[in-house]
């Protein structure tokens, strides 16, 4: 359970999410892949907060929580993102009767 093992698992999760976000046609699958990437970044941040020594450690012990604070903000932004994203999905479904991204071509021309 070394630090590098956490980083590598997070990197694998991130790249799977990246592939999903780039290669899927269903917009809900893309949203799920983006959530995977958020989670991978959170794992990285929390692992760094646990294993690495921040610059101001000797002056202020609370600097070891910086990674966790960042993770809290990322979780909040992910919640906002999914609320808006699903709103857009429903708006798209109402006008297009589909959630296929390759058929979302209203902005072309």
């Amino acid at each position, binding site marked *: 359970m070394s630090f590098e093992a956490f980083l590598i698992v997070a990197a694998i999760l991130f790249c799977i999410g990246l592939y999903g976000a780039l*290669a899927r046609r269903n917009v809900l699958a893309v*949203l799920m892949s983006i959530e995977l990437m958020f989670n991978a970044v*959170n794992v990285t941040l929390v692992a760094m907060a646990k294993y690495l020594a921040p610059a101001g450690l000797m002056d*202020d012990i*609370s600097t070891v929580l910086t990674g966790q604070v960042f993770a809290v903000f990322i979780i909040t932004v992910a*919640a906002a993102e999914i609320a808006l994203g699903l*709103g857009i999905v429903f708006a798209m*479904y109402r006008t297009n009767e589909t959630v296929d991204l390759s058929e979302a071509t209203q902005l072309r021309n």
Partner: protein
Amino acid sequence: MLFQDVVFWILAVMAIVGALGVVLLPNLFRAALLLIVVFVAVAGMFILLSAEFLAVVQILIYVGAIAILIIFAVMLTRDVQRGNLPNRMHIPAAVFAALLLSALVAVAVDTEWNFLPDDQQERVELVQVSAVTTLTGEALDEAGVSQTEQKEMQESGLADLLISDYVLPFEAVSVLLLAALIGALVLVRPNPGTGRG
């Protein structure tokens, strides 16, 4: 230590297999269920990394809210039968993701990380597990922490940090959540012209 290693590898396999299922399974509903498996595995990793508060938040927000919202969206859009098809770019996307993965792994293995000194491990762990400052004097006395350090540690929980050093981003993120809430309401509101829902 050995037990933690076993738990870590179980969680890692859960997360990676679940993530592969999310992006590769043709049935979107099953993909959404596997997403919950990934979220739970990540929450377990947070516990291994002594971030208990984040693990609870992960379960509450990701599993309790985000995954349920996605499952509702999957059921409401009725595109489950057509499935989760790849687009024309899926081979370049896979190559790009694999290249990025090899770069990230190379960086993770090669970098000289500035690890915590061993004598600080226990202090850091005590601070990190206390999201809201719940450290009592007795627990700190048992861990052999001096009185001045006790005061410092009791004032450095995650909650204290959010309303002191990080108060500006905290307020900004609150406004962002409010804006997202209003935006989502506007987007799903029935169209006034057509009356369709």
